[in-house]
């Protein structure tokens, strides 16, 4: 055989990860967590700043409002995380929230059992996801375009159903999701109050975490996002998984609609959710997930949602903002955020 160099020892250069070097091993492994950690750090910094500057941040009422009112955003961000991890994007979620909530409430008003209606809401969301997924997987439509079309479709169908707000009937079971559970009863509104809707969001987060990190389907999501061709050649069920991802995202949008509709007292409207997809995407990005797919964590997106919540809260608490500057400031802070994150993670690359 041809003489190629034969190594005297299994030394493959110094950068090869070798078992046993605990520190370098930890470093190597922790790399993909760093952007998410950075987000956590920045969130804490924001909250501390707000507490010092305006007060009443670490306040039972404030914290519970934050958690409860951002439950739908968190649910959407979770779905978006899964989609983005696979290298895709779902622009339709905001519009799907509008359609599912309007259709669900109308069903309730037309005598459909309240719980069945709730299930149908989630089902309708999943249906939009299914269409997106099939377009993307089987007809090679780019995710941006397929989900944009679904955004138009869902928004349009919602408007066709009704352009006036519809109200769920008194005592509809969906309203139970917004029941206040007082966990700590403080003076006046300084109570720690949570709603079932919040716990739904928690369950979704836990479920997504388990799905992504404890199931083969979840690993396939990461595989598709990292290198679709490789995933395909490795024999992973790419087609099935991808369709599932979009179904999941749609279903979660339906679930977010359920939680949000409950939150606003059973009212649904065709203009709900305009721009929520961008919030969800921003939350995912702030949470450290790469838009190119393959790297990121669902917990990061939760942190990202909370960052957005904290940002809105600071703007409100400050109260001195000129309306013209609102989007400039939001954009500027978003930018500062990704820049800081970049600085904090810069050492990842040599």
């Amino acid at each position, binding site marked *: 055989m*041809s003489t190629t160099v034969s190594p005297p020892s299994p030394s493959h250069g110094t950068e090869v990860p070798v078992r046993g070097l605990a520190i370098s091993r930890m470093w190597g492994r922790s790399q993909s967590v760093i952007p998410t950690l950075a987000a956590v750090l920045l969130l804490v910094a924001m909250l501390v700043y707000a507490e010092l500057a305006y007060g009443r941040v670490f306040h039972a009422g404030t914290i519970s409002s934050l958690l409860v009112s951002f439950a739908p955003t968190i649910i959407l961000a979770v779905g978006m995380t899964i989609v983005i991890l696979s290298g895709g994007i779902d622009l339709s979620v905001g519009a799907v929230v509008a359609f599912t909530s309007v259709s669900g409430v109308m069903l309730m008003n037309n005598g459909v059992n309240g719980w069945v209606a709730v299930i149908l809401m989630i089902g309708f969301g999943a249906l939009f996801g299914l269409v997106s997924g099939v377009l993307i997987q089987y007809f090679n439509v780019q995710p941006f375009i397929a989900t944009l079309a679904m955004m138009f479709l869902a928004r349009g169908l919602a408007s066709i159903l009704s352009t006036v707000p519809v109200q769920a009937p008194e005592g509809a079971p969906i309203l139970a999701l917004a029941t206040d559970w007082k966990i700590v009863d403080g003076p006046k509104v300084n109570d720690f109050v949570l709603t079932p809707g919040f716990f739904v969001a928690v369950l979704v987060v836990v479920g997504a975490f388990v799905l992504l990190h*404890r199931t083969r389907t979840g690993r*396939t999501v990461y*595989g598709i996002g990292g290198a679709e061709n490789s995933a395909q050649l490795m*024999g992973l069920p790419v087609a099935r998984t991808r369709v599932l991802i979009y179904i999941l995202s749609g279903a979660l949008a339906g679930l977010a609609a359920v939680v949000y509709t409950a939150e606003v007292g059973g009212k649904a409207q065709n203009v709900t959710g305009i721009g929520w997809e961008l919030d969800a995407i921003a939350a995912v990005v702030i949470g450290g997930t790469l838009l190119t797919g393959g790297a990121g964590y669902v917990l990061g997106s939760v942190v990202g949602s909370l960052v957005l919540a904290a940002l809105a809260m600071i703007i409100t608490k400050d109260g001195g903002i000129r309306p013209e500057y609102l989007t400039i400031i939001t954009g500027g802070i978003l930018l500062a955020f990704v820049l800081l994150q970049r600085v904090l993670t810069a050492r990842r690359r040599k």
Partner: protein
Amino acid sequence: MTESLPIVEVRGASITFPGVKALDEVNFRLLPGEVHTLMGENGAGKSTLIKALTGVYQIDSGSILIFGEEKRLTGTASAQAAGISTVYQEVNLCTNLTIGENVMLGHEVRGPLGINWRATHARAQEALTRMGLGHLDTRAPLSSISIALQQLVAISRAMVTDSKVLILDEPTSSLDAAEVETLFSVMRRLRDQGVAILFVSHFLDQVYAISDRITVLRNGGFVGEYLTRDLDRTQLISKMIGKDIEALRALGSNRQVDARDRSATPVYAAEGLGRAGALAPTDIEIHKGEVVGFAGLLGSGRTELARLIAGADRADSGTVRLKGKKVNVTSPVSGLGNHIAYSTENRRDDGIIGDLSIRENIMLALQAKRGWLRRIPAREVDQLVSTYMERFSVRPNDPDRPIRLLSGGNQQKVLLGRWLATDPELLLLDEPTRGIDVGAKADIQETVAELAEAGMSVVFISSELEEVVRLSERIVIMKDHEKVGEVVNGPDVTAERVVSIIAAESEEEAEAQAEALAEGETR
């Protein structure tokens, strides 16, 4: 070996891509307990046949039988379900995941709480250990290891499942001898357990070392199936290329007796060239018309040195003189501007621009060098393109075909054309012969010799040491990201001696050996 029922049989399979008949009525049989090699030139259709067998492509006509039963493979998953594991030609893993996850992806060990990561990594570790990779940390990201190691990881992955058929498409092209040996011993063990192995390689030695049977393809067509012991190398090569190989044999390499005057100002001279974490400061000189080989183990820093010379990476120390004049080569642009061209070892990620045509790929670097404003006139482009496509007989001969549709070897040839088109004075070729068939390999070696003859300086990096020794006038020996010695080629210099320098226990010893060799040369 007794002729048992083939596990896999292909009968009269054809596949046509727009403009190319990639497979034309090919027959193939894979028996249990054999290592069966698929041979053929670049673009002969080997990878395509493999992809047909694994469900990536569907055949237009013909049939595929698995265990004697006709099967329609609709995707890689269905092939895997049928017991076929595959390692494709280009590494196909997910660099965003850890080593262990890559090994186990789709086969993770599951417990009541979903995937049991501890057990999964343990099984990955087992699989890696079998491939002699026990030292790898399964929880480290795949991107942290070299392409060669990734290739081994890919092979480990294929062995995780109890497959009855194992397909390896050029698994050895980036491996060193020891790794090849480990791989072969694993392959032999599997073969003895009755696994049928389909193997592709351009290294004749390896083919003869491991395989029981050979199927030869030529231009998408089926040439024949032979027992390895019945077919000697000359016959094999002439079957592959369809003509006599005497021409190939007369490979112009008498470089070993070349005595060059090295007193003139070198074309390229670097002092203390280095980069933290990648390469210790290195001195190197390259003279006009000289072929300098870089020898070393995988990951020894050959690529890093070449990249620093070319400006692909930015050096953080050292001074560089070109023909005596001090210059800064800090980017590929300044490298090309100073007539230094670098052909990368990682063809797919750093070399080809997949969606662009062959024509555009060839002209790209020259165009970049001239600037975006002055587009190269169509006539000049046509001329360049036909020159290089003919010179390396790129197939298919259609300059408007996107380069990603070419076979691996042909892509390499196009890239070589790209660099030559920039008219370099110093050409750095990093593994230019990897994955290239014998004929083309000879062409490239011959080209290198010609170029040097015509006054170009060439740096030649190859894991195939014999090639380096045959082609180079001077050999720079690298180890652990450091240059450990330099040998002027001569009759005494053999691959074995270079290996022993590399294998020396200490740096001093290596230097002493190199010196001894050098003195032997002067005597």
